[in-house]
């Protein structure tokens, strides 16, 4: 009699353990499903910062197009600069524009140097001949900074 009761209890205990395991598995599945549903909900719905119930005008479209063109040009120029610097890593980047102070430009103009685009060393030395050493150094430093001479 006792052995029968013991067997029954063991069987009952086994069954309960199996049931507990199944409930745990089901709970785990529910949790996963809830997480998935939440993720799906978040990906589907969304916030929009600003909406205006007016149709987009041609002016806006035109401005958008201009902006895109400008951005493309900027990107191209950047790529060009990067390519140049990669090809000549030792060369310092210089702007295309060569400017010196007004007094220097005036002085050089008086000496017959009107353009700074093509300046020969001999011409420059001849032009600076009447100046003191300090003045010659100052003018040449300015021309160096401006990229006229290197």
């Amino acid at each position, binding site marked *: 009699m006792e052995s029968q009761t013991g067997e029954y209890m063991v069987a009952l205990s086994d069954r309960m353990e199996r049931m507990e395991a199944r409930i745990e598995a089901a709970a785990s599945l529910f949790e996963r499903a809830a997480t998935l549903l939440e993720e799906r909900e978040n990906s589907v*719905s969304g916030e*929009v910062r600003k909406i*205006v*119930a007016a149709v987009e005008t041609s002016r806006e479209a035109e401005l958008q197009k201009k902006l895109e063109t400008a951005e493309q040009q900027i990107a191209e120029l950047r790529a060009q600069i990067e390519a140049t610097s990669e090809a000549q890593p030792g060369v310092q980047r210089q702007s295309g524009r060569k400017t010196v102070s007004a007094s220097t430009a005036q002085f050089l103009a008086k000496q017959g140097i009107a353009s700074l685009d093509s300046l020969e060393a001999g011409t420059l030395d001849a032009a600076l001949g009447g100046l003191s050493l300090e003045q010659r150094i100052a003018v040449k430093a300015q021309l160096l900074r401006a990229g006229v001479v290197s």
Partner: protein
Amino acid sequence: MKLEAMAVTLPEVAGHPNRAPFTGVLTLVDEPSTKPPSGARGHRVILTRPAALAALPSLLGMAVDYAPSWDGHDARRKCGIITQAEVEGARLEVAGYLFAKDFPEVERQVRQGLPGSMGMSWELADAHVEDMRAEIWTLTRATFTGAAILLREKAAYRNTSFELAASRCRFTPNRLAPPQREHAGATRPLREEAKPAFPGTDRRKEPTWNRKRANTWSR
């Protein structure tokens, strides 16, 4: 027909030179827009009725603006204020004042333009879209940040309208019957309940009393 309304009270000033009362249909609720609004990434939108009703308080006190080309919004050109808003059927109707003295060009455009040529457009912030992948976006929550007067053909909702009252008066027009309205927040009834009949016993004074009552209403 279910109708819900809200209003803010402005002090009454007789013959105010800078207040021109206006009424308009700002948008339609539970109906898709005719065209995609700006900022909706090419989607047409539906403003749900619950979202519109929840957002009504945010509409009161907001400005109406205009763009010189009458084709959109310009938040820096605020030419009026919204003081009443109501959802009547599918229409979200607004009323308020235009700053007519400061913006004579707006009054001129509305009064001299073709009848029915002007419409309205809302500006919403933090709009919640139910499904971003849907062909037509359903807006379930939003905040009104302003409105614009524009050519009706430039509005995303074709059935909007904007009209100025025939003459300047102290009250904005009111089409609502008191029993139909529901109020919330810091609002007031748009019109007082009907007063009781002449209470006195001297019937000779009744016409005078009625005349005074009528004058009170007209103001």
